[in-house]
C-alpha cells in the first residue's frame, strides 16, 4: 500500500486550503498536534468505513473524499428507489434498482481523483470482527436503530490494547438532526442514550379491532389484522405497490364504515413504512458535522466534539452541544444488569408486550432466559414449541425476585440483563 503522501501527487494547489489547516497550528489546536507532513500522511493512509450510502451516506462519501481521506469502504444493502432522488445526489433516475453502495462509490471516485472507495452491497452483520478491526474510524449514516445498536456493540466489543475505533454517528428527521462522537468504553455509547428515543406508543389491539378513531387506526387494522387474515403467511412488502394499494383500499373501506376522514395513499405508506421526512439540506448539515469530526480526529488539527450536537432548524437555528454522560449500567459498555420491576401476577406474554414499549428492549424476536431455565426461545422450532406454554404462565410461577433475566435477540450482538423485582 502506498505510504507516500497522496495529497501531493496532484497539483500541489489542489489541497492548498486543507493543507493550510494541517500545516499551521490554530489557537485551539491540541498540544499533541504537529503541523506539517505528518497529519497529511495520516489522512492519506487511514482506512475509514462509512455505513450507509443513503441520504447521509452520499454526503459522507463526498465529504470524506474532499477532506483528504483516500481509503474509504462503504457498506449498504439497499437498492436505489425513486423516492431517494430528492436528496441522494449521487443517484440518477437511471440508477433506480441498483446497489446504493456501488453507484455511490463509483460516482465519487469518478469525480474526485485519487480516492479509492470499496463498496459492499451487504448487511453490516455479514462482516466479522476481523473486517471491522482494519478501520481507524467508522462513520454511520443509518436510519435504523437496530443497525446502530449492532455496530455500536460490535465496536465496543472490539476495544482492546491496540484497538479503539471511534464511531461517528449522524441522524436526521425533517429539519432536525444530530451528530455525535462515540469513543467506545471511554465516552457514552449509542446504547447509553437509547432512552433519548421517543418511546413507541403502540395502539392497543382492541382499538384497531373494534373502535378505530383515526385514519392511522384503519391503516394499521388493514396491515396488522386484515392482511394475515386474508393473505395468510404471505409477508407484506412495503415497497410493492400492489401490497400498498391493497392495504390502502382496505383501510379506506374501513374508514368509510366508521366515518373516519383522512385516509390517503401517502398516509398509508407513511404509517406502514414508518416514513420519516428527509431533505437534502438537513442531511448536508449532519453529514458535514460528522465528517468535520472525522477530519479533526484523524489529524488532531483541532479538538473534536465531546460528544453530542443536536441541530434544530424548524424554528430559527438552534444547536445544543453537550457532553452526554455514560450510563453506569449500560448493557453494552457498562455491562451491569439493570433493575426491572414486573407484576408477579402478569403473564410472560404480557411482559414481552411491555418490553416492546421500552426503546432498549424493542426487539425483533427476543428470547428470554433466567439463570436456571429457558422461559421462551424463538428458535429452534422444537424449543419454541416446548417453551410456548410458558407465555400463558404467570411470572411468579416462572421466576423469583432477584433472578437475573437475560434477553437475547438475533439483531443484537449482546444480551440484555435485568435483575427482577416484583411490584406489590
Amino acid at each position: 500500500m502506498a505510504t507516500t503522501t497522496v495529497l501531493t501527487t496532484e497539483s500541489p494547489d489542489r489541497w492548498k486550503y486543507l493543507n493550510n489547516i494541517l500545516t499551521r497550528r490554530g489557537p485551539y489546536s491540541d498540544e499533541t498536534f504537529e503541523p506539517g507532513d505528518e497529519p497529511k500522511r495520516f489522512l492519506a493512509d487511514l482506512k475509514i468505513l462509512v455505513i450507509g450510502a443513503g441520504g447521509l451516506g452520499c454526503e459522507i462519501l463526498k465529504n470524506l473524499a474532499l477532506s483528504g481521506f483516500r481509503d474509504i469502504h462503504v457498506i449498504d444493502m439497499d437498492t436505489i428507489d425513486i423516492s431517494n432522488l430528492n436528496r441522494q445526489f449521487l443517484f440518477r433516475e437511471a440508477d433506480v434498482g441498483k446497489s446504493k453502495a456501488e453507484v455511490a462509490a463509483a460516482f465519487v471516485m469518478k469525480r474526485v481523483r485519487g480516492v479509492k472507495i470499496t463498496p459492499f452491497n451487504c448487511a453490516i452483520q455479514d462482516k466479522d470482527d476481523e473486517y471491522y478491526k482494519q478501520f481507524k474510524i467508522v462513520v454511520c449514516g443509518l436510519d435504523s436503530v437496530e443497525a446502530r445498536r449492532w455496530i455500536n456493540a460490535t465496536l465496543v466489543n472490539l476495544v482492546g490494547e491496540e484497538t479503539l475505533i471511534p464511531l461517528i454517528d449522524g441522524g436526521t428527521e425533517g429539519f432536525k438532526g444530530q451528530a455525535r462522537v462515540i469513543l467506545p468504553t471511554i465516552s457514552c455509547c449509542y446504547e447509553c442514550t437509547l432512552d433519548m428515543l421517543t418511546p413507541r406508543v403502540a395502539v392497543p389491539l382492541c382499538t384497531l379491532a373494534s373502535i378505530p378513531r383515526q385514519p392511522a387506526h384503519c391503516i394499521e387494522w388493514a396491515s396488522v389484522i386484515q392482511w394475515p387474515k386474508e393473505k395468510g403467511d404471505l409477508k407484506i412488502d412495503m415497497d410493492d405497490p400492489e401490497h400498498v394499494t391493497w392495504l390502502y383500499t382496505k383501510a379506506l373501506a374501513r374508514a368509510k364504515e366508521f366515518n373516519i376522514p383522512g385516509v390517503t395513499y401517502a398516509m398509508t405508506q407513511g404509517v406502514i413504512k414508518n416514513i420519516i421526512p428527509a431533505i437534502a439540506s438537513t442531511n448536508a448539515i449532519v453529514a458535514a458535522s460528522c465528517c468535520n469530526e472525522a477530519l479533526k480526529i484523524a489529524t488532531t488539527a483541532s479538538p473534536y466534539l465531546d460528544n453530542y450536537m443536536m441541530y434544530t432548524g424548524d424554528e430559527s437555528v438552534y444547536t445544543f452541544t453537550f457532553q452526554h454522560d455514560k450510563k453506569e449500567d449500560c448493557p453494552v459498555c457498562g455491562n451491569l444488569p439493570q433493575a426491572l420491576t414486573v407484576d408477579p401476577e402478569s403473564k410472560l406474554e404480557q411482559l414481552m408486550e411491555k418490553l416492546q414499549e421500552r426503546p432498549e428492549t424493542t426487539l425483533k424476536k427476543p428470547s428470554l432466559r433466567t439463570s436456571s431455565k429457558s422461559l421462551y426461545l424463538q428458535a429452534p422450532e422444537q424449543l419454541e414449541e416446548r417453551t410456548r406454554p410458558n407465555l400463558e404462565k404467570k411470572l411468579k410461577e416462572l421466576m423469583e425476585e432477584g433472578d437475573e433475566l437475560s434477553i437475547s435477540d438475533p439483531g443484537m450482538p449482546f444480551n440484555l440483563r435485568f435483575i427482577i423485582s416484583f411490584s406489590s
Partner: protein
Amino acid sequence: MSVPGAPTAKEKKYDRQLRLWGAGGQEALETAHILLINATAAGSETLKNLVLPGIGRFTIIDHAVVTDEDLGTNFFLDDSSIGLSRAQKTCELLCELNPEVQGHFINDTIENILRSNPEKLKDFTTVVATGDIPTATLLSLDAILYPLGIPLFVVKCVGFTMSCRLALSEHPIVETHPASTVDLRLFNPFPELSTLVDEKAASMDDKEKMTTHEHDHLPYVLILLQALNEWKSTHGNQPPSSYPQKNEFKSLLRSKMWNADEENFEEAIAAVLPHFNPPSIPSETRAIFQDEKCANLTKESTKFWIIARAIKEFSEKNGGLLPLPGALPDMKAESKDYIRLQNIYKTKARADLAVVFGIVRGLLTGLGRDGGEVEESEVETFCKHAGYVKLIRGRSLNEEYEKSPRAQVISNDLSDSTSLIHYYLGLRAYEAFISDENNTQRIAPGAEDSTVDADTEKLNKHVTELLDKLSITHSPELLEGTEKAIGEIVRAGGGELHNIASLTGGVAAQEIIKIITRQYIPMDNTVLFDGISSRTFVYKL
C-alpha cells in the same frame, strides 16, 4: 396502475419532502428563481440542496476561472473544468442533479451587473452572496434588494468558521408548524359542546344509569367538562386556576374512576395541566393585531394583513377568542362518539371560518378591491394557525453597518471568551481586509505562510477600528476570544474546508426553503457556526 389516490411520479420522487411542506410549499419552490453570486464550495452546496428538492431556476454569477484549489473544495467541478468558467461548469454539474430544474450562468462580476444592469436583480426570488465580496458591493446589493423585499443571504465560510447573514424585510409566516394546534375550549365551551356533555356525561357518577363499558369509553374531553361543571358549582363558578387547585381537580377526577385501569380517566388527568389555561391571545398574534399595518389597511395591503385584520375583528366580537382551529387529539372512546365529538369541533371551526371569511370579503370591498381576491382556503389556513402566526421584521445590511448598528448585542457578549460573537468580529475584520482599496486582488489574510503574522495584526486592527466606530469599550482581555477567532481565520488563508462549506450550504438552504415556502420559522438575522466546538448561535444584528 390507476388506483385513485396513488401518487404521481413527481409525488413519488418528492415524497419525503412533501411530508414537510406539502403541495403548497412545493409549488412555491418550483416557481422560485435563486441567484448565487460566486460559485464557491459553500455557494454550490447551497444550490445543490435547492436543486435536489426541485427549485424552479437558478442563476450563477461568477467571473472566476476554475483552479486546482477549487477542485479541492467544490464537488461540482472536475478535472476537465480547470481553466474554464466557474459559473458555467458548476451550473452544468448542478443541473445533472435534477432534470426539472433550469440552471443559468453569467460569466461576469457582480460589480459589473450592479453597474450595467441592476434591473436584472428584480428577476430573483432570493439572492445568495458568497466568497470574497467587498463591503461596498454588499451594501449596494442590499440597497437594491431590501426595498424590493428580495431576501439577501450573505454567506462567509473560512476554515472552521461560517456566518450566514439574512437581510429580510417584512416576512409573515402563517404555517409555522407548531407541535399542536389543539384548543379544546374547556374553559369556554360553545353551546354544541355543552349540549353533548349534558347528553353523554351528566350521569357519569351514576352506576344505575351508565354501564361500566360506557363509563370507561367516555371521551376525556367530556369527562373534564362534566367535572368542571361540578367544580365550578362549588367554587363561585370559577375553574381551577392555581397549581394546587389543579392538583385538587385531578384528585376529583381520580375519585370518579370506577376502577383503577380506566384509561380515559388517566387521559383526562394528564390533560389538566396542558389544557387548563384561561383563553388568551398569544403575544406574537397580539403584536400582529396591534401592528400599524393591521390597523390601517390600504388598497396595497397584502392578504396576510387583510386576514389578520379580519381575525382581529372576529376576536373582538367573540370575547377575545380566536377562531377555533378545530383539531381534536385521539382519545379513548367508541368510534362513533369520537367522530361525533370531532365533528362538533370541526363544525364550530367551519362556522368561525365562515364569519372570518365574511369579514375578509367586507374588508376587501371596503377597500375597493375584488371581494373574491382571497380564497377561502387561505383564510382557513390562517384561522387554524391564528394563535401561532409569526411576523419577522428583519434588518438591512445598511442598518447593521451604517444606519443603526446594534453595538449592544456585540458588547453584551464580548467578555465571554467562548461566545461566537468573536467569530462575527473576526469575519467583519476579514471583510474589511479584502475590501481594503490597496488590496485590489482581494488576497485573503494568511494566503501565504509569510504573511500570517502581518495579516493577523491587520485583522486585529480592523476589529479595534470597528469597535471604536461602534463606541464599544474594549481591552486586550475582552478581545481574548476575538484574537483566537482571528487566529483561526488567518490560519485558513481564505480557504474553505469542504465539510464546513457543505454544512454552510445545508444551513443556508434550510433557511432559503423556509423563506420561499413561507413555512417554518427562519432565523433572524445572523447565524454563526464554529466547527471546532460544533456550536451555532443566532444574533440579531
